[in-house]
Every structure is written in structure tokens, then in C-alpha cells.
């Protein structure tokens, strides 16, 4: 039976620190089971909410209300309040959708793919990365819903349900594949996250003094008692979920890329789109995990669990995926030239020199040039610098989607139908509002649930090691 524990025990212990060439342990030495539990659980179970939490939450909640306003006004007026028109019929809604979905992918990568690859360092970051996935997918899901302007009238072509018109969604279209991919992704991400939470919530249940908290955690933990027979099935379920999530996460962004690639628009109709989108998704997701992990470990003093080694590893993943994305940009330019198709080559030229050229070059700067700094160990271990780089990559990946969507649409085959796209204040309000929603959800999560997987960190400790023969 493949074991979570074996791989974790394969990690160098405290004793190995002196040996050269051995990475430091993923958890700072000197902790025992109780201390790990208390340190992580006390963040949640304390009765004193830190002022920084209240301030941060209020700011995020305020920004979220911008979203409420923007969506409320949208429902009153319709999509005419946005900058979209012919020829650019896809604007911020699809850009933000792709951006948010991509961010979610790092959470699944950390929790599922790194588990399968036996990367035990994932353990202290997987919980909040999964939460990040869940909330990012919620933000992403907002856009396909609201971009119809009247979502309550649009259900019949999004979801297959028996309706009075006896119509069904068109299953030959990538747009309906998207509905299935994203809703499955949301469900499976939730299952994964919740399954991981059960033993930890049981710890909180037994530790909580407040009867309301005890009741709430009691319900959530389903009566988990840590039985070896339960753990046996639990580990299987967890491993199977990881195995199922891995192809799922690849399929989700592949399907998203098909929304573009199945069309005939120059710059979209290319076979490179699926891998290029998946790499971009992981790239932006890791940038977001860093953007979140750095302030969180600072604010909650979690540096012993989210160590510099974690940041270093995440920076390496970012560099690697960033290079794949850079390769994607080069291939696109190569296609433009090598295809000898004048629409393709014009599209690339227009992208580099046309009215949206500044966004293209900004994206090259953010996504290709900046991350090259991550080659240097000095940069990877400089936390503030890493934080800045992660922010730049987040912006860069948003610009990438902007460039893909807008530059391809605004000048297609017929010069007579060319036009420009300018986002309106409502486009920006909706986008910024979803950032507020995302951060609000994260703040709530950090306050009521353990942000680091307690039981998995326990299993990482050297004392968890069981001798082969007793």
C-alpha cells in the first residue's frame, strides 16, 4: 500500500542537518505532537481576534461590496455597461474567468500532484492552497454566470435540465464542456479540501472550549476518532482523490483553452493552447500561493512550518513553469511567421506593435524577464523580493489573458470590422470586486479553520517514525 507516511519519513531528520548537501527539514526541529497541534489550532480557537485580522477583513469586505454594486447595476442595466461590443465581444469576463481558474490550479497541483510525486514539503502549504483553489474557482465561476447579463434566463443552455422549451445544451461546444469541467473541478476540490480537514476538525472539536465552536466542529468532523481502521480507508480515499484530481486539473485548463482554440480566430486557433494554458495556470497559481503564504506566515508567526525551504521550492516551480510559458510565447510568434498565413502573422505583428503593444511588452516583462531573477538562490531566499516578484507574475498572467483575448478579437480578418476595446469603470469594479470576494473568503477561512494540515505535520515529525521491526 502506498503510504503517505513512508514518504514523509524519508525526509531527512534533525540529525541529518549537519551533513553537507542535505536540505533542512521541512518543519523546524524541536516540536512535539502537542505543540504542533496547539500552535496551529490556537490561531483558530483563540477568543481574541487580532486587530490586523479585523482591519484586513473589513478592507476586503469593503472591496467585495464593490462587486455587489457592480453586479447589481449589471442586472439592472445589462452588459451594455461593460466595454464589450462588436468586434470585441469577449472582454473582462473571460479574461478574469481564465485568470481565476488558473490561480486555482496551483492548489490542486500542490495537494494532488506533489502528493503523488512524494514531495512531503507540500504538507504545510496544501491546506490553504486548497482553500485558495476553492475560492479562486468561486470567483472564476462568477464570470460565466454574470456575463450573460441575465443569468436567470440563461440556465437552460448552461445546464442540462428538462425545460419547457425541451431544449438541451449543445454538447459539441467547448462552452458546455467548460460548465462540466469547472463544476466538477469545484466539487472535487471541495471534497479534497474537506476530506483533509476531517481529522483536523476533530482535533479542534476536542480542544474547543466554546460550546458553539465545539458543536460546529463536532458536526464537521462527523465523529472522527482516529481509528486505525478508519485511517486505512482514509489514506486510500485521499490517495485516490489525488490520483483523480491530477488528470482533472489538467483537463480543466485544457477545456478552457479549447474555448479559444476550437474557434478560427487568428492567435487562438493553435494546437499549443492546451499545454500552454496549463503551464500558465500553474505559473500564476504558484505566484498567488507565494503572494498569500508570505504575509500569512509573517502575520501568524508560522515560519517554523512554512519555512524558507517552502518558499524556495515554490520559486523554483514558478521559474520552471514561467520558462514553459515563455516557450509558449516564442512558439506563438514562430507560428505567426512559419504558417505563412497572413492573418496569423499580422496578428503577431499587431500584438507587438499595434494599439495594445504596451500590454504585450508589459506581459513579456512581467512573465519572462522578471522571473529570470529566480535563477539566483539569493533572490529565492530574499522573502520581500520574492513577494514582489510573485505580485508581478500575477499581474503578468492577467495581462497575458488580456492580450490573448483582446488583440485577437479587435483586428480579425476584415479591416472594415476592426475596432478597439476599452474597459469601463464597471469592468474594473467587477474585477476588483472579485479580488475582494477572494480575500474576504480567505480571511474567514483563516479565522475558523486550521490553515495548515495538523495531522500531516504531526506525521512529518521525527517522533512519528515507527521502527520497521519492534
Amino acid at each position, binding site marked *: 500500500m502506498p*503510504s503517505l507516511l513512508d514518504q514523509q519519513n524519508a525526509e531527512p531528520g534533525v540529525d541529518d542537518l549537519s551533513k553537507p548537501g542535505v536540505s533542512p527539514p521541512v518543519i523546524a526541529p524541536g516540536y512535539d*505532537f502537542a505543540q504542533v497541534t496547539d500552535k496551529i489550532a490556537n490561531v483558530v480557537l483563540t477568543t481574541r481576534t487580532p486587530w490586523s485580522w479585523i482591519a484586513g477583513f473589513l478592507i476586503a469586505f469593503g472591496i467585495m461590496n464593490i462587486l455587489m454594486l457592480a453586479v447589481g447595476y449589471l442586472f439592472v442595466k445589462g452588459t451594455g455597461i461593460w466595454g464589450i461590443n462588436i468586434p470585441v465581444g469577449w472582454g473582462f469576463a473571460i479574461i478574469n474567468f481564465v485568470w481565476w481558474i488558473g490561480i486555482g490550479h496551483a492548489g490542486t497541483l500542490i495537494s494532488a500532484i506533489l502528493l503523488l510525486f512524494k514531495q512531503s514539503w507540500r504538507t504545510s502549504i496544501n491546506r490553504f492552497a486548497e482553500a485558495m483553489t476553492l475560492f479562486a474557482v468561486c470567483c472564476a465561476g462568477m464570470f460565466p454566470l454574470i456575463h450573460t447579463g441575465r443569468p436567470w434566463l440563461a440556465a437552460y443552455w448552461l445546464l442540462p435540465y428538462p425545460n419547457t422549451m425541451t431544449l438541451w445544451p449543445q454538447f459539441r461546444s467547448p462552452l458546455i464542456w467548460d460548465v462540466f469541467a469547472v463544476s466538477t473541478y469545484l466539487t472535487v476540490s471541495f471534497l479534497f479540501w474537506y*476530506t483533509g480537514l476531517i481529522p483536523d476538525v476533530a482535533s479542534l472539536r476536542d480542544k474547543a472550549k466554546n460550546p458553539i465552536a465545539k458543536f460546529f466542529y463536532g458536526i464537521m468532523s462527523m465523529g472522527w*476518532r482516529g481509528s486505525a481502521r478508519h485511517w486505512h480507508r*482514509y489514506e486510500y480515499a485521499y490517495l*485516490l482523490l489525488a490520483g483523480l484530481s491530477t488528470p482533472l486539473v489538467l483537463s480543466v485548463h485544457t477545456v478552457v483553452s479549447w474555448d479559444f482554440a476550437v474557434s478560427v480566430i487568428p492567435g487562438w486557433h493553435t494546437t499549443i493552447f492546451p499545454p500552454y494554458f496549463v503551464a500558465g495556470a500553474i505559473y500564476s497559481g504558484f505566484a498567488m500561493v507565494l503572494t498569500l503564504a508570505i504575509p500569512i506566515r509573517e502575520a501568524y508567526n508560522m515560519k517554523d512550518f512554512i519555512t524558507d525551504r517552502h518558499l524556495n521550492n515554490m520559486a523554483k516551480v514558478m521559474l520552471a513553469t514561467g520558462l514553459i510559458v515563455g516557450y509558449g510565447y516564442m512558439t506563438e510568434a514562430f507560428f505567426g511567421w512559419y504558417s505563412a498565413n497572413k492573418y496569423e502573422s499580422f496578428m503577431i505583428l499587431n500584438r507587438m506593435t499595434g494599439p495594445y503593444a504596451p500590454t504585450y511588452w508589459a506581459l513579456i516583462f512581467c512573465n519572462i524577464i522578471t522571473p529570470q531573477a529566480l535563477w539566483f538562490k539569493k533572490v529565492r531566499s530574499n522573502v520581500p523580493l520574492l513577494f514582489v516578484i510573485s505580485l508581478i507574475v500575477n499581474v503578468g498572467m492577467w495581462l497575458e489573458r488580456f492580450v490573448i483575448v483582446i488583440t485577437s478579437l479587435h483586428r480579425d480578418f476584415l479591416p472594415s470590422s476592426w475596432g478597439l476595446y476599452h474597459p469601463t469603470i464597471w469592468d474594473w469594479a467587477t474585477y476588483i470586486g472579485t479580488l475582494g470576494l477572494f480575500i474576504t473568503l480567505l480571511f474567514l477561512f483563516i479565522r475558523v479553520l486550521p490553515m495548515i494540515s495538523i*495531522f500531516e505535520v504531526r506525521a512529518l515529525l521525527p517522533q*512519528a517514525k515507527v521502527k520497521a521491526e519492534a
Partner: protein
Amino acid sequence: MKPTGIYGLMAEFDTADELVDAGRKAYSEGYRKLDAYSPFPIEALDEAIGIPHTILPWLVFFGGLLGGAAGYSLEYWTQVIHLPFIIGGKPLHSWPNFIPVWFETTVLGASLTAVIGMLGLNGLPLPYHPVFNIDEFLNHAQKDKFFLVIESKDPRFNLDSSKKFLSSLSPANVWEVPN
């Protein structure tokens, strides 16, 4: 038939090693209605107290097949039978276009089966269990201590001799667990 009014006997250990060792000894002593409790999964316990291999992977396999079949049937029935509608000159049964949704529903069926199956086989949710009657268990089982329980249902269970046996394993404590 319960020979006594108790659920079983519980022994507490300080380390995972001691628990695995005690579990192995209890199993070789002939006890079968055994359970071990630990704050994190311990692989060695599976073999030590003779936990049979779970059928969960098979359930997940069939859950996936069922999900995929449901997804594909939905596509086939809506696109070919109920609303035959030709789009872009493609055949009604354009199976390559049906693959993505079939794939997603397969993953969905398998994942739901994995979680619901795991909980179901574990008998969860279960609001009450006798082991929670022991305060030490309540305070430490989900945190830092390790427990071995011999249920009174075990044919070899005898309050006195079983207690003597558990005490011989040098536990930190031994309790009778009321039902």
C-alpha cells in the same frame, strides 16, 4: 453477547512505536476485535492488528464507470434521441465531442464515491462512540497520545485476564470503557 456492561478495555501509550508493538502483541495473543487510535495515520498498524485490505478502490472504480456512463448517456440521449439537431455538419452521434463531458463525469463519479465510500465504510458520521467516554482519550487522542482498545465483543475478552494482558504491555494507563 457482551459478557460485561462495558465496551472494552483501553490502554494508552506515549509513542507510536509502543502502540504498534502493543497492537502486534495483542493480535498474536489472539485478539481480533481490536482497534488502535492515533493522531495521524500509522502504516505499520494495518499489519500489526490485522486490518483487512479495504474494498474502497473497487468501489471508486465502479463509481467512475457509473459516472462516465451517466455522462455519456446524457449526451447521447439529448443530442441523438431527444433533440436531434445538426450543428456544423457534424453527425448526431459525434463521439469525439462527447469525450470531455464523459471524462469529467467519470472523475466526478469516482471522487464522490471515494469520499462517500470512505465515510460509509468507516461508519461515519457517528455522533456518539463509547471511546469518547474516557477523558484522557477526549483530551489527547486527536493530539499526542496513542490508544489500543480491545472490545468486549472479542471471544477471548475477559475483563481480568485482558486487563492483566494490557498492563503487561507497559502502557501509561488502562481504562474500562463504559458503553
